[in-house]
């Protein structure tokens, strides 16, 4: 059983990958095998991917702020330098995932460069003290003193007035000079001569466009600097030793900003990329010979080359990493949660794969696997060529709904037009044969104005013909769509969808719609009013209203609370109506942004936003008091939330977190970082198998290992026959002590005599039944916790009823009934409704 640990917010995906250029690990050099790792800065972490399997192998965490630069240690290819906004440089052993050293610099570090020529110093960009928006390139001497945490004090300024972006500084051939660009100026500093040359291109705004520098790259063997410009030109500078007699040539293909440049290892080819999402290969730096790799999906942010030149990779603005062969062939892409401009679809859970479904690439729907942090697949909804050009309004996906079994998918796409929006409602059928969604019906202009909400009638047990789709639109109506069977037996499609009923209420805009759990009632909110309709006869049954303020969200209660309807209004009220008495049950003053019911339990999560912090409240509709409160969930504003059902109910020790038993709550923030509430940290969540893989993968495949592999496979088959043996093996593997022992590098392990008793103990099979003492301890802890909570978690302001029945609350946990009753009583005694005054 898991000990009751504190619930904490854990990051599990998304965020920004483009803090810095990605770095290939050096052992991609291994002859004949293109195995290696790709290291990439992702938020506060450095992620390590396997190039061959696209898996996330390791997360190097330790920085307190965004990681801004990563570089392999030029003197040891198994080590990595990383810099962060928290002002520290860390040296990692990335194979084992441990920090070797931490150097504290003090001020924010914006970029990091490591050179082979400079023995023990690295270059970083820091803001100039005392001045805003001016930055300088400094070299930091990394002391070789013993100890892990060191202070780097020997700083010397190399260049003044550089740009903060890491793309705008590049070091030349063997570290002889450094080139830096800012606005329309290029500075080249020669280390040996201590000479600084400045060049500039003509005025910022010429007729042809913006002339500003955007990026710079230096030729690895010749004295040549390539610079990219905002108007799409690439300039190649030579002879920059002379202040006057320098020359440059221009390459022009990009129609928009050149985002990044990279020379191949030999320097014969130049790669450039930009908003067009086309990777351009310039051969011999000439304008005539160029190759293209078009349609990479999204604008290219960084280009980086492997040190052996066999691979190159592009990091895109939407967090995708594309790995490209040296002959400019697409090899593979590493994609986690794709960042889209605006997640309009909300977080939806695919009932079939339990994957999170949301906007992906423009016009696509991404299915994101939460367990492996990978994109399962991307479904093309719009099916049109996306033109990567600024200022075009292109069709995008705005609404998504799945039927209960995941058999049907409804999508709405729209294109903003000056006169009237272009809308399409598409219904997709899951084809078992091809294992993908197939377009069944396309409806042009389902509503005359934007569609605000859409839902299927969620009925698990009934057959297909009870399936109903409801769309609510700003054109003041909601429409009911039903499946129509084609009468003609020879027709290709047996079913299609058509409109069955159009409902409206006093010419108000329909904003939300929601079906009750049994599908008998439909709630549609029209601005300030919630209307409840019978889903068979489509009669208006009753209306609810809580003026002032428009309805923002509505949902029905589930299971034992199915008689309640919850609504959140614009003016910060959370209301609960009883559908049997048609009266307001209770209401609370809470500025609710998101209202998300758990599909498997009665619990409803509400996320509020006030005074620059998001708070989470979990409650049951039948009592006005929240079950769980988490203040200050994260720094960013939470945009969306979703409950994802767990495969198997998790054992949760603490009664307070019972609401997390059947499903897990995920959030998406403004910066598109995916977070969840968990008692475990992310490192624990990464499956140990992938770690194992990391070790095994680094071994080259020899004939002997192949032979051994065969042998092992046979053995494992033998194991399956002998079930018992397998179980015991598994048990050994699971033991944390053994895991620790096997996966910790030998040089950091303590002595064998120290480890021996732990190891022996871990082999013993523990008894399942706990002693009475332990249980008592646990209870004590719980009661302590409730006392702690009651300090901050008092109660709701306006309560219409106070009949809280703990029997309902606890369901199957009848053995603890008396204790919980006691607790309830204590809570009620301590009630003073003061927590709400914070708002």
């Amino acid at each position, binding site marked *: 059983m898991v000990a009751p640990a504190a619930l904490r917010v854990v990051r599990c995906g998304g965020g920004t990958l483009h803090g810095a250029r990605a770095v290939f690990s050096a052992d991609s050099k291994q002859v004949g095998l293109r195995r290696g790792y790709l290291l990439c800065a992702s938020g506060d972490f450095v992620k390590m991917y396997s190039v061959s399997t696209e898996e996330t192998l390791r997360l190097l965490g330790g920085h307190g702020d965004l990681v801004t630069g990563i570089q392999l240690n030029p003197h040891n290819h198994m080590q990595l330098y990383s810099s962060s906004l928290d002002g520290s440089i860390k040296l990692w052993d990335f194979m084992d995932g441990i920090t070797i050293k931490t150097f504290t610099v003090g001020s924010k570090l914006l970029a990091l460069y490591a050179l082979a020529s400079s023995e023990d110093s690295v270059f970083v960009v820091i803001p100039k003290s005392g001045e805003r928006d001016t930055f300088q390139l400094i070299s930091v001497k990394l002391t070789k003193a013993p100890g892990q945490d060191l202070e780097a004090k020997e700083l010397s300024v190399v260049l003044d007035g550089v740009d903060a972006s890491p793309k705008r500084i590049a070091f030349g051939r063997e570290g002889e000079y450094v080139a830096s660009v800012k606005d329309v100026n290029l500075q080249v500093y020669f280390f040996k001569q201590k000479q600084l040359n400045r060049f500039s291109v003509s005025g910022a705004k010429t007729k042809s466009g913006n002339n500003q520098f955007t990026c710079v790259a230096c030729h690895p063997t010749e004295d040549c600097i390539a610079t990219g410009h905002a108007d799409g030109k690439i300039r190649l500078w030579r002879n920059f030793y002379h202040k006057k007699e320098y020359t440059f040539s221009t390459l022009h293909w990009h129609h928009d900003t050149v985002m990044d440049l990279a020379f191949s290892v030999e320097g014969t080819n130049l790669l450039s990329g930009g908003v067009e999402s086309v990777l351009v290969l310039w051969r011999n730096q000439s304008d005539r010979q160029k190759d293209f790799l078009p349609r990479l999906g999204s604008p290219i942010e960084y280009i980086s080359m492997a040190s052996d030149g066999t691979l190159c990779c592009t990091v895109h603005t939407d967090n995708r990493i594309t790995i490209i062969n040296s002959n400019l062939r697409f090899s593979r892409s590493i994609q986690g949660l794709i960042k889209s401009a605006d997640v309009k679809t909300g977080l939806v859970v695919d009932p079939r794969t339990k994957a999170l479904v949301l906007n992906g690439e423009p016009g696509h729907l991404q299915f994101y696997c939460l367990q492996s942090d990978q994109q399962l697949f991307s479904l093309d909804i719009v099916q049109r060529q996306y033109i990567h050009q600024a*200022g075009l309004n292109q069709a995008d996906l705005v609404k998504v709904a799945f039927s209960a079994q995941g058999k049907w998918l409804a999508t709405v796409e729209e294109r903003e037009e000056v006169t009237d929006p272009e809308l399409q409602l598409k219904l997709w059928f899951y084809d078992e044969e091809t294992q993908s969604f197939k377009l069944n019906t396309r409806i042009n202009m389902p509503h005359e104005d934007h569609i605000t909400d859409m839902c299927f009638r969620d009925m698990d047990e009934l057959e297909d013909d009870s399936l109903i789709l409801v769309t609510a639109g700003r054109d003041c109506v909601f429409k009911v769509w039903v499946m129509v069977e084609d009468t*003609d*037996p020879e*027709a290709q499609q047996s079913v299609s969808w058509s409109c069955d009923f159009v409902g409206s209420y006093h010419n108000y805009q329909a904003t939300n719609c929601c079906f009750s759990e049994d599908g008998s009632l439909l709630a549609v909110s029209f601005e300030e009013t919630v209307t409840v309709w019978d889903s068979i006869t489509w009669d208006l049954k009753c209306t609810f209203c809580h003026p002032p303020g428009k309805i923002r969200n509505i949902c029905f209660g589930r299971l034992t609370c199915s008689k309640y309807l919850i609504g959140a209004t614009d003016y910060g009220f959370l209301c609960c109506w009883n559908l049997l008495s048609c009266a307001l049950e209770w209401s609370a003053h809470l500025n609710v942004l998101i209202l998300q019911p758990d599909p498997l339990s009665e619990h409803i999560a509400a996320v509020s936003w006030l005074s620059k912090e998001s708070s989470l409240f979990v409650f049951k509709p039948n009592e006005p008091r929240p079950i769980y409160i988490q203040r200050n969930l994260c720094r960013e504003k939470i945009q969306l939330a979703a409950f994802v059902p767990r495969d198997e109910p998790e054992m949760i020790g603490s009664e307070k977190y019972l609401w997390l038993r059947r499903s897990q709550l995920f959030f998406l923030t403004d910066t598109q970082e995916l977070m969840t509430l968990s008692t475990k940290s992310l490192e624990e969540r990464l499956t140990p198998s992938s770690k194992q893989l990391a070790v095994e993968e680094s071994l080259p495949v020899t004939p002997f290992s192949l032979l051994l592999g065969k042998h092992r496979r046979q053995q494992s088959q033998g194991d399956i026959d002998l079930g018992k043996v397998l179980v015991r093996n598994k048990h050994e593997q699971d033991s944390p002590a053994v895991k620790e022992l096997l996966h910790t590098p030998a040089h950091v392990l303590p002595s064998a005599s120290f480890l021996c008793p732990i190891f022996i103990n871990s082999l013993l099979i523990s008894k399942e039944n706990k002693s009475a003492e332990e249980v008592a301890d646990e209870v004590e802890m719980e009661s302590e916790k409730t006392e702690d909570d009651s300090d901050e978690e008092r109660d709701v302001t306006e309560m219409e009823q106070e009949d809280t029945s703990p029997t309902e609350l606890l369901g199957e946990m009848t053995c603890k009934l008396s204790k919980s009753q006691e607790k309830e009583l204590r809570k009620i005694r301590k009630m003073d409704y003061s927590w709400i005054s914070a708002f």
Partner: protein
Amino acid sequence: MATYKPVVVQTFPKLGERITQDTVYWRGYKTPVQIKEFGAVTKIDFSPVSPYNYAVTASSRIHIYGRYSQEPIKTFSRFKDAAYCATYRDDGNLLVAGSEEGSIRLFDLSGRAPLRQFDGHTKAVHVVGFLSDKYRIFSGGDDYSSSLWDVPSATEIVSYNEHTDYVRCGCASKVNADVFITGSYDHTVKLFDARTKSSVMTIEHGQPVESVLLFPSGGLLVSAGGRYVKVWDVLKGGQLLVSLKNHHKTVTCLCLNSSGQRLLSGSLDRHVKIYSTTSYKVVHSFNYATSILSLALSPEDETIVVGMTNGVLNVKHRKPEERKERSEKKRQPAYRTYVKGRTYMPKQEDFCVSKPVKRVLRKYDKLLKSFQSSKALDAVLEPPIRLYTPEVTVAVMQELHRRGTLRSALAGRDEKQINLLLTFVARRVIEPRFTAVLVTVADMITDIYQPVVGQSAIVDRQFLRLQEAIGKEIDYQEELLEVLGMMDTLFATFTKKRATYLEENKSNGLTETIETNRNN
């Protein structure tokens, strides 16, 4: 990595009649041949044996027509008054017919004079037919009786006087030689068994029965009378299976197609309706000039013959099936080279190299792929695309608009090209499916070419035509709106009245029945 996605050409479902396999099948007839008869054609019967001649009964004559002959190949005209119901025997050698004077005559197809004459009916005999044993004849007359006759001896075997009105139609079972049915104007259909003295089953149709039909299996019975066609299950004791009301005048004749999958009914409302016998829905319908009295389909549905009240015989022959041998021939050599090794199944140790499938792009797609907007627009303004698939032209225009390059694609064109564009726009802008896009295009063209108005007579004329077309459409829409308004008022008053009417009836407990009637 994504490949180029071709332009989506939106296809719109055609309004009105939907094309199904049935419509394709039933439309596959040539233009009809019209043959003028002497009077109303009351009966048409196909010979069951090749070459499928058919006997047409009209007035006092029976004409035998060959498959493609427009002149009768044989005529039986020894009737003093009208002849009725000339019917072939199963072997196609004998023909029997009733007559107005009450006698039934049996003809040999090779001779002229009747072989036998059966007297016994006191009034006109409108229905006669062979039983399936070939040696007996059943008949029904206006004297309310239905009789059974022995062919060799020309004597009456039995006479049933059970109907209470004229007997006007009948049919013999194909599976049982003793069973036949007759339908009468007394609204009933009776099933007789020659071995019993009275009718075996009586089915109440509800209207004077004009035509009856037994399915080849003998299990289902179809009766037509009034506006209804009803299907009964004989084996279940005459239970009503389905009642069809698709005609708005009396249904006069019924017929099954050769496969038994479709049921045809002809009516005085000038329509022939074709029903599917599985769903009993109308799958197709034919229109004729005048009221239809009789209808027959040749074996294999080769010919549809319809007789009408004004004595016109309408004959439709099926078109010969088209074969596309040519295109196949052309393809053969290439096919042969590619087919080599296609059936080879890769073994486990084989290393499979899949050849990328090369997608063929249309010309405009190729141009759009390389961002050549003007040329792409030129490509879709080529005559075949512009004239026959305007939706492609409009789709490309929309795509250009989406890319923001429509204006530059439209600009910089000479007189001839502007003329072409404006002709297209003026012609298609009124089609609802193109209106949204073409209005934008028209807007842009007027914007771009405003400065040169007046320099070319051709372009000016096109502009005027465009204006005219749009003006007309606006007038038309206004008129439609007016009509809609009128209808709204009518509907409003109508629903109000009905509501009050319903309330009055509520006390009588009749509401429910009215409700159900309304739903029907």
